[in-house]
């Protein structure tokens, strides 16, 4: 971010308030100091956003004031607003092209509105939730707020969700994070149902009490579903929509070819560009954790189990580390030593050391039994996002970065606490994940540059570059048998790789939230993938074996407890949940992934 000393002259420069001499001196610095140029661009971008926001807010106010004086009503006035808004936007630049989008919205929302009526009300909400009026104005939602036909709902950010109820029949919509929907009355003449346009994100619909002849129709970019007396969930992102049918039956039509299928209870279907469009059995759903523990003091960002499984350790945003008993019923000890968030934790393979890495640029080593600080690994230039012990416990690798986009991967000798090498010249942005191969000869690193590098630990040269993700890598894990490397990315896929050749073996899709953590089971056959929920995949077939639901806020970490029978999730809602990982797989089920 921008240094406070530089901010004022840069702002004055943008505002044209510097003298010619001052401006020339600053420009000289801008040519030779990349960080200062970065700061100017960032500040300029801030000005751009504020200007756009303020202009849009003013245009809306003017249109509203004008509308109040016009003798129009209902849809006509809404159309007039929208057309005027289009004209206003057209003046700002790229608008001619954008007009198509707004005209689409006008079409979708127009012609049948009853602005004075209430379609739904906000029953429950969390995080940033906005009501979007037909003229595009967003206002923060409030509990109990009425949603008129034609209005949209937008949730924004981790943990944001909103529950809407329809007073007419007690139908419910649970709208997940980063979701945009628009509601309206049914558009088909003679029908009295409800229409939901899901632009992106996740929605769970319970219309089990809906009267007959009043179906709910959910339209996504890829599919349209008509259903009555059902419970369903929809997730739409990128190129596909997934529909899970929990109760009742629905008719699902794929938009690209108009093909319709019936999706029965206990099934799911995916509408996408792929050919397979058929209901598939849902994996076993685990809706309740066996136990849960809350820690309200500070968000939990990282976690690890001791080798004997007796201790669960969590790293927190306030720099503390907490040692819990395995059941999560009590915090046995709190370790204080870091000044910034603890982003990564790892136990040495023999269990004698706990390593913690923080944004404060230090890796600390602790005696996990008595909580003593037994050393600090120093010399890192930036915050640390990831650490890994070598399988023999003698080395520790760190991944992170400094400045704007400078990667930093270093290797330390655990006994001497000294740095013994670094891995340079390959990544072009911060490194966010590191993992040692089973034999300790290879270090896998993944970063914000979207690629994974497999390094020879001895020569520190790259053996393979794995280039298959389209967004930053967030987690890497070798299977315990060493046969598979799994990578999770912000592109919402998990990919499986052959560690020796770097060949991509399989892409696991189906995540509709940000995947933040993955963990292999001890048998190497199952991989837990955490986004807002946890999905357990069969690594060999790519089939979903089970899903662990019930989290409304995203998960930060998923772990298998030693022994492999229990799955532990650390939520951004500051809750630790313990799940039975031995959930039964479904009897039949095709691969939900593709090679």
């Amino acid at each position, binding site marked *: 971010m921008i240094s406070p000393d530089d901010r004022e002259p840069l702002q004055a420069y943008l505002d044209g308030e510097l003298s010619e001499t001052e401006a020339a001196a600053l420009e000289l610095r801008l040519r030779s100091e990349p960080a200062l140029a970065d700061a100017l661009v960032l500040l*300029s971008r801030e000005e751009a956003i504020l200007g756009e926001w303020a202009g849009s807010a003013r245009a809306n106010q003017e249109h509203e004031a004008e509308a109040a004086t016009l003798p129009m009503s209902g849809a006509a006035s809404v159309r007039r607003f929208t057309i005027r808004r289009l004209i206003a936007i057209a003046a700002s*630049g790229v608008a001619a092209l954008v007009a198509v989008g707004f005209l689409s919205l006008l079409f979708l929302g127009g012609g049948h509105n009853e602005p004075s009526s209430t379609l739904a009300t906000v029953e429950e909400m969390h995080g940033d939730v906005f009501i979007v009026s037909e003229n595009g104005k967003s206002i923060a939602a409030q509990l109990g707020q009425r949603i008129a036909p034609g209005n949209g709902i937008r949730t924004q950010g981790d943990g944001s969700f909103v529950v809407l109820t329809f007073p007419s029949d007690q139908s419910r919509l649970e709208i997940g994070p980063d979701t945009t929907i628009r509601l309206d009355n049914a558009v088909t003449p003679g029908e009295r149902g409800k229409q939901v346009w899901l632009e992106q994100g996740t929605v769970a619909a319970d219309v089990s009490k809906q009267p007959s002849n009043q179906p709910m129709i959910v339209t996504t970019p890829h599919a349209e579903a008509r259903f009555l007396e059902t419970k369903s969930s929809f997730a739409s992102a990128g190129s596909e929509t997934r529909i899970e049918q929990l109760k009742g039956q629905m008719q699902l039509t794929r938009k690209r070819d108009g093909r319709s299928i019936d999706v029965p209870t206990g099934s799911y279907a995916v509408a996408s560009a792929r050919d397979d469009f058929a209901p598939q059995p849902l994996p076993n759903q685990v809706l309740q954790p066996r136990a849960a523990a809350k820690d309200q003091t500070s968000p939990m960002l990282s976690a690890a189990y001791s080798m004997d499984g007796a201790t669960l350790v969590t790293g927190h945003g306030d720099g503390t580390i907490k040692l819990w008993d395995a059941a999560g019923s009590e915090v046995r000890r709190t370790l204080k030593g870091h000044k910034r968030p603890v982003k990564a934790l790892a136990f040495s393979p023999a269990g004698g050391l706990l390593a913690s890495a923080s944004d404060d640029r230090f890796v600390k080593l602790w005696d996990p039994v008595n909580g003593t600080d037994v050393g600090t690994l120093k010399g890192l230039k930036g915050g640390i996002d990831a650490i890994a012990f070598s399988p023999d416990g003698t080395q520790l690798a760190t991944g992170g970065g400094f400045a704007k986009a400078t990667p930093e991967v270093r290797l330390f000798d655990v006994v001497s606490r000294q740095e013994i090498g670094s891995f340079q010249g390959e990544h072009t942005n911060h490194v966010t994940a590191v993992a040692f191969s089973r034999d300790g000869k290879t270090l896998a690193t993944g970063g914000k540059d979207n690629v994974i590098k497999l390094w020879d630990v001895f020569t520190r040269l790259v053996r393979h570059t794995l280039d298959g993700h389209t967004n930053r890598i967030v987690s890497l894990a070798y299977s315990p048998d060493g046969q598979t490397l799994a990578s999770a990315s912000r592109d919402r896929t998990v990919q499986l790789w052959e560690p020796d050749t770097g060949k991509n073996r399989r892409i696991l899709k189906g995540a509709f939230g940000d995947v*933040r953590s993955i963990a292999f089971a001890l048998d190497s056959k199952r991989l837990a993938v955490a986004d807002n929920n946890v999905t357990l995949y069969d690594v060999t077939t790519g089939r979903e074996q089970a899903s662990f639901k019930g989290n409304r806020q995203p998960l930060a970490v998923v772990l298998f407890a030693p022994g492999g029978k229990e799955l532990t999730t650390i939520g951004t809602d500051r809750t630790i949940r313990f799940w039975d990982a031995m959930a039964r797989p479904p009897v039949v089920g095709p691969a939900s992934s593709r090679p």
Partner: protein
Amino acid sequence: MAERMLGQGQVARLLMHHRTALYGYIFACVRNHADAEDILQNVSVAVTESIGQLQDEKGFLPWAREIARRRVLAYRRQTRREQPLDPELVLRLAEASDRVEREFAAADHRAALLACLEALPVRSRQLIAMRYDGSVAGMGELAVRFGRTVQGIYAQVKRIKTVLRECVERRMSLEMQ
């Protein structure tokens, strides 16, 4: 191939998605909103006309930024402004824009800042809106409207922007977890 891959709707979507990044770069170069709007409009037209040159959607922003860089230099030449722009500085700012985008995408910046604006107290929001919506001639008029001294209004705007910046940093820090 690109022409087949990227239709007008996609071009519009890409332009909208990267509008903040492009405008931020252009404004950093010309430091004048009217000029920046004009140049962005020129860039939008040029991008739409020459989209066939783009090989891959992933390369859209660097490609569009390069068009913007040339348009910035051309615009200043055409309009014969009193202060010519230094091509090297325009290039350095393009490189900076690329670095900043890699580190902190404009779309994320925009989303975070808009959310933070929503969370401001009403009066602070009004002040920032009037500061940026072009409805007042300058800080002097803004001071009169809000019953403050000019220095006081400067300080107030600065405080609110600090609050917004901290809010954005907090949100991005959570996002990075």
